């Protein structure tokens, strides 16, 4: 029982990066832009978050803001490439990941940020409510970003499904030609969606260092960006399903350091494979299910070229 409570109390912290990242990707991909650069944005956010905490200790919110902004800056490069220069979205996304891997390693190395621990953002304490057995520990003793994530999910899904801007965003991703004919600026919407996606992913990356690990190590996103991409496909671009998926992966990540404690004797490297193997299994399961090809933005991955409009 104690194991279970301990495990569940740790889940939100692991789920937040997946949830925020997935939300960012959903916004971006709803506009029809396939964004494979997730891993890169996470890395930039994480590195800037750590760097900010090391240079200006004691300002975790500033660090998270800077992390989101830095990643948004990188997403501007991606946006110019795929929106204005009409470069292949797969090549651009991959290039962004490799650019970010090299860049973060170089900058963190030169600034001396690598492998230096700092004190990050702690959990909130609501006094008596946080002390309620079981429930208090799981729901009311988390860090503030966990609650912010839930708020952001409510706002973002309201905007996507209940506002004019959201309707237009989805129209751009479904049929850019028709949307263009209706006088909606396709390229502006796509640019903005990529930028907002970058902000969310950067915040997710900043969370990884500022709240979770409290240290920067090269390549520390460790494939989470790719898991997020798979998560969005699994969620069929629906925000609340993505949140569910994020919690699932949070459970798995929170379980990894505890496997030995339950008394299961599995070689450690097989345990470390778990998130990737589960992601693959989830992807297979998603494509086996009946609704496999429904709900994805029809124009996903296709550049909009007005001169070629048919």
């Amino acid at each position, binding site marked *: 029982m104690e194991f279970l409570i301990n495990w569940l109390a740790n889940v939100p912290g692991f789920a937040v990066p997946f949830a925020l990242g997935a939300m960012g990707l959903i916004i971006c991909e709803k506009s029809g832009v396939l964004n*494979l650069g997730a891993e890169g944005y996470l890395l930039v956010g994480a590195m800037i978050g750590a760097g900010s905490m090391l240079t200006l200790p004691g300002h975790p919110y500033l660090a998270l803001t800077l992390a989101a902004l830095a990643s948004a800056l990188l997403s501007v*490069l991606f946006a110019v*490439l795929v929106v204005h*220069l*009409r*470069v*292949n979205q*797969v*090549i*651009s996304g*991959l*290039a*962004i990941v*490799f*650019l970010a*891997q*090299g*860049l973060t*390693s*170089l900058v963190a*190395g*030169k600034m001396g940020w690598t492998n230096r621990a700092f004190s990050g953002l702690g959990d909130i304490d609501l006094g008596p409510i946080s002390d309620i057995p079981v429930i208090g520990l799981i729901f009311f003793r988390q860090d503030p970003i966990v609650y912010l994530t839930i708020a952001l999910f409510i706002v973002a899904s309201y905007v996507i499904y209940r506002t004019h801007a959201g309707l237009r965003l989805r129209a751009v991703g479904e049929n850019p030609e028709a949307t263009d004919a209706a006088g909606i600026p396709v390229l502006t919407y796509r640019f903005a969606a990529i930028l907002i996606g970058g902000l969310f992913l950067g915040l997710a990356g900043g969370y990884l260092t500022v709240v979770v690990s409290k240290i920067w190590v*090269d390549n520390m996103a*460790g*494939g989470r960006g*790719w*898991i997020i*991409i*798979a998560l969005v*496909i699994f969620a069929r671009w629906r925000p609340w399903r993505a949140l569910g998926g994020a919690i699932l992966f949070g459970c798995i990540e929170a379980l990894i350091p505890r496997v030995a404690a339950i008394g299961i004797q599995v*070689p450690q*490297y*097989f345990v*470390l*494979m778990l998130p*990737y*193997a589960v*992601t*693959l299994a989830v*992807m*297979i399961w998603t*494509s*086996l299910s009946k609704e*496999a*090809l429904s709900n994805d933005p029809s124009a996903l991955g296709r550049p909009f*070229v*007005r*001169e*070629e409009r048919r």
Partner: protein
Amino acid sequence: MTDGVPARQLWRLHLEIRDHMPLWQQMLVVGSGVAAGLFISVCVLMTSGVGLSALWNEFVVFIFTNPRNLSAVMTQSAPLIIVGLAAAMAFKVRFWNIGIEGQMIFGAIGATFVATFDIGPESLRLPLMAIFAMLGGMAWIALPAILKLRLQVNEIISTLLLNYIAFNFLLHLLYGPWQDPVSSFPHSEQFAVFERLTSLNWGKLDFSLVVALGLVAVSFWLLISSRFGFLLNFIHSNPLMARAMGVRVAVLTLIAALSSGAFAGFSGFVVSAGIESRMTQSFFIGFGFSGILIAFLARNNPLTIVAVSLFVATLMIAGQSLQVFYQIPFATVQLIQAIVVICVAASEFFMRHRIRLAS
């Protein structure tokens, strides 16, 4: 670009789609893309504390006046050529094989399996290792290939996830059953002399470059002049049309993907049995992205792949000495490659569009 531009705007850009551009102009555009990429890279390196003269020394003088370093570049280029071919093979059928590193790991595992358990007579050991390496690479790409063809599972993500699984499996072997019993370091036992690629007596250069060039010849024939290559080109330009014309798209895609895995596995064998002479924890690092970059820059053409591989190999060797003398992390090599790719990809805009200033 748009109708009804505000009157205060004095000039505007006209974009037109270009159907065709003469080859020399295309080369000029790509060349300027590469030049722009290198210029930005030089700026990045200079801001991180490497002076212009140092760069000139490391990249030009150091490499091309010292036969030992030139041979190191040649040695490094062999596995790069092979991963470039691996990527090109898959990209020909629009199969995004991002899992080259995972397939290299399983190639090396196949080769090391043969070496560790002394399978076959000594004279046949190397060919057996090569065959097992190719089988390992093929096995590791088979799952994503079948998943894509049968269930439309996105191969970019599945091949990438399998990289992480392969890497953890490699660590399991190297920290467990296959740990070097001699030194207890987490790498495999050193291969015996007959399990290593023969040295060509010029610096570190070994037989791998000969093999790589042989593979280039085979791929050139396969991709450029055979019927198989023609069909792959057909699938590349229009898969639906190819299917409608009776081309067996699924079978050909599977064959191309499996050969891509075989090439990647083979390069895992080449690095292990050549440069490293054992299976290490990090022998594959950077090859996956370099393969994709090489195939992209070379437009999937085996001959251009050789040229681009030499360029990337120079970058890698110079990067190693920058790491030693200027504390520049090796990942910077990856950064430079990414910058070049982005610039070249962006330059293609000018290949497909004509821009006019209209008053």
